[in-house]
């Protein structure tokens, strides 16, 4: 499963600073005393910013201002440990309060269709870029082979209508941001807002999303996960797992068929408890662990839907038997098993008293039926 590793604002800014992109004076603090210390070092009015992996924290009350260290500490004490946008605040970024004259947007992402990095810029920064009218946005594809050159940034500032020190600052930062984007296998590098303050051009807020599939090349980066504990446990097995809010546990092989299984359950009036894609040729042991984890979530029913290709039906059957023998399966289990080594798999289950379906339609209907019966209990 593809995961994106989002970095906290303070981490994104540390990368910015490493690449020479100006950031506000400041530091991250893990408790109120540290907030006091950082604010005292700055010795000027500060912003106290909650570090959560979600936009919109300003409006949600996650950013406070204070005139001195004492005030910053008070704000920090009020913020630490509270919930914000679904996250518990456990770290604050304390920074000099900027005198903001203008707010720009500068971001680089990948355009899937064009198969190229895409630079996005706007002089209308400080808000979600999705809300900025297209006519105020400049988009430039970057050739992944040749990269971003100074002449591109001259075209950029011309299209943004910038001149002077402002233009020079934006052009320079764009070059550095692309280098960062490329060096760190990024899915997104975003500065929003990029602030004009006097003669400075500063990255006032930043987001960085790293491609999890390339994290092995960046051992120094933290492995931040937005997944729940169970999700992380199953993802660690190499399987894709997402929690949903229904009551039928689902395991299928392949992202498309797993989504389709969830959809089919819904068509028949059932509701999936999760998305578990055990495809990609997983072996018996991780599949058994994943099924075991599903069992322990206490669903109304479990539906295993396998159309074997690279996944082998006998492996799936053996995984089911492993769980049954080791921890038991005290909830209704419906298995659909066709494809590679189908006969062997069906036989293994049969010997253990489990009848496998060959039709996805029938299996899904059965699972919904069993879950509804369970609900009545």
């Amino acid at each position, binding site marked *: *499963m*593809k*995961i*994106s590793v989002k970095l906290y604002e303070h981490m994104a800014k540390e990368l910015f600073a490493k690449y020479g992109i100006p950031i506000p004076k400041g530091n991250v603090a893990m408790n109120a005393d540290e907030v006091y210390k950082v604010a005292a070092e700055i010795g000027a009015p500060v912003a106290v910013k909650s570090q959560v992996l979600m936009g919109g924290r300003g409006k949600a009350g996650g950013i406070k201002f204070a005139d001195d260290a004492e005030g910053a500490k008070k704000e920090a004490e009020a913020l630490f440990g509270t919930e914000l946008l679904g996250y518990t605040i456990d770290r604050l970024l304390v920074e000099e309060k900027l005198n903001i004259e203008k707010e720009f947007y500068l971001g680089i992402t*990948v355009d*899937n*269709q064009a*198969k*190229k*990095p895409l630079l996005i810029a706007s002089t209308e920064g400080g808000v979600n870029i*999705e809300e900025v009218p297209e006519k105020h946005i400049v988009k430039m594809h970057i*050739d*992944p*082979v040749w990269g971003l050159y100074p002449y591109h940034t001259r075209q950029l500032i011309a299209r943004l209508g910038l001149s002077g020190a402002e233009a020079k600052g934006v052009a320079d930062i764009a070059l550095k941001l692309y280098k960062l984007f*490329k060096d760190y*296998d990024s*899915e997104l590098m975003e500065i929003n807002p990029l602030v004009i303050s006097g003669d400075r051009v500063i990255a006032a807020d930043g987001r960085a999303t790293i*491609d999890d*599939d*390339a994290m*092995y*090349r960046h051992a120094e980066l933290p492995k931040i996960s937005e997944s729940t504990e169970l999700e992380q446990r199953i993802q660690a097995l190499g399987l*894709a797992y*997402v929690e*949903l*809010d229904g009551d039928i546990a689902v395991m*299928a*092989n*392949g*992202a*498309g*068929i*797993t*989504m*389709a299984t*969830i*959809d*089919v*359950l*819904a*068509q028949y009036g059932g509701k*999936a408890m999760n*998305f578990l*894609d055990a*495809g*990609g*040729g997983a072996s018996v042991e991780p599949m058994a662990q994943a099924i075991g984890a599903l069992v322990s979530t206490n669903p109304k029913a479990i539906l295993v839907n396998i*159309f*074997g*290709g*690279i*996944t082998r039906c006998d492996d799936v059957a053996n995984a089911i038997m492993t769980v049954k023998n080791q921890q038991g399966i005290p909830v209704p289990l419906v298995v659909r098993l*066709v*494809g*590679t080594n189908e006969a062997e798999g069906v036989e293994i289950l049969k010997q253990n008293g489990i009848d496998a379906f060959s039709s*996805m*339609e029938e299996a899904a209907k059965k699972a919904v039926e069993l879950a509804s019966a369970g609900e009545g209990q």
Partner: protein
Amino acid sequence: MAVIIDEKTKVLVQGMTGNQGQFHTRQMLDYGSRIVAGASPGRGGQTVHGVPVYDTVQEAKEKHGANASILFVPAPFAKDAAFEAMDAGIQTVVVIAEHVPLHDALDIQAFAKERGATVVGPNTFGLISPGKCKIGIMPNQIYKPGPIGIVARSGTLSYQIADNLSQNGLGQTTVVGMGGDRVVGLSFIDVLQMMEQDEETEAVVLVGEIGGTAEEEAAEYIKGMTKPVVAYLAGRHAPKGKRMGHAGAIIERGRGSYESKVKALNAANVAVAELPWEIADLVKNVMK
């Protein structure tokens, strides 16, 4: 006729000596694919199921003239192996591996563009022209030769649908797996264009999913097609903001929803099946 691969395609297997390589070489040979050689660094001189293995693609290509290659190499090495194949002049490169780094995928596609090669995948089950050639990891027994083209992101879901078609007497010209990653070699439009031009293909099944705008763009193209297209889309009941296994399968920033895709496809006169096993009937309808 068929698209991309047919009975004349000479296939090379990179990473042939590994577990997956050996297993699927056997499967492809059993299917009748012309597997002419394998390449596995340091394993030159060995054979797998009677097929000779070479240290480099260059040498394998020189001796056997392969024009397609399938890669059974781990994701971190996929870029190097794909470059090796394209640099040796291989025109169709099938990248099975999941978890190929995004920036590697960008490089692979840029190199393919420079060399005029076609990359299928990454994160694909491959492609098959039933009765002619299979380059991939799909089960052998579910496909039948016939007039239907299938283009899909997702492997197992496409097996389900191919099986439904075959069991209803609707065989396939070619089934193409685009791959589930964000950046892949072929778009729906690329494949639809080929199928529109393929003489044997009479109707096309598009198997899409939530996320991105590829299906919407495909719908625009379909408006100009002469051949009928029907579709199935996975992810109708997926929650917003959650990535459903595939890198692209996520509804975010108000884009990529099931409803948006159905609307666009319907506007292009494409019927969208509510259940996978309704596809065969929809195809029969449009082929009348």
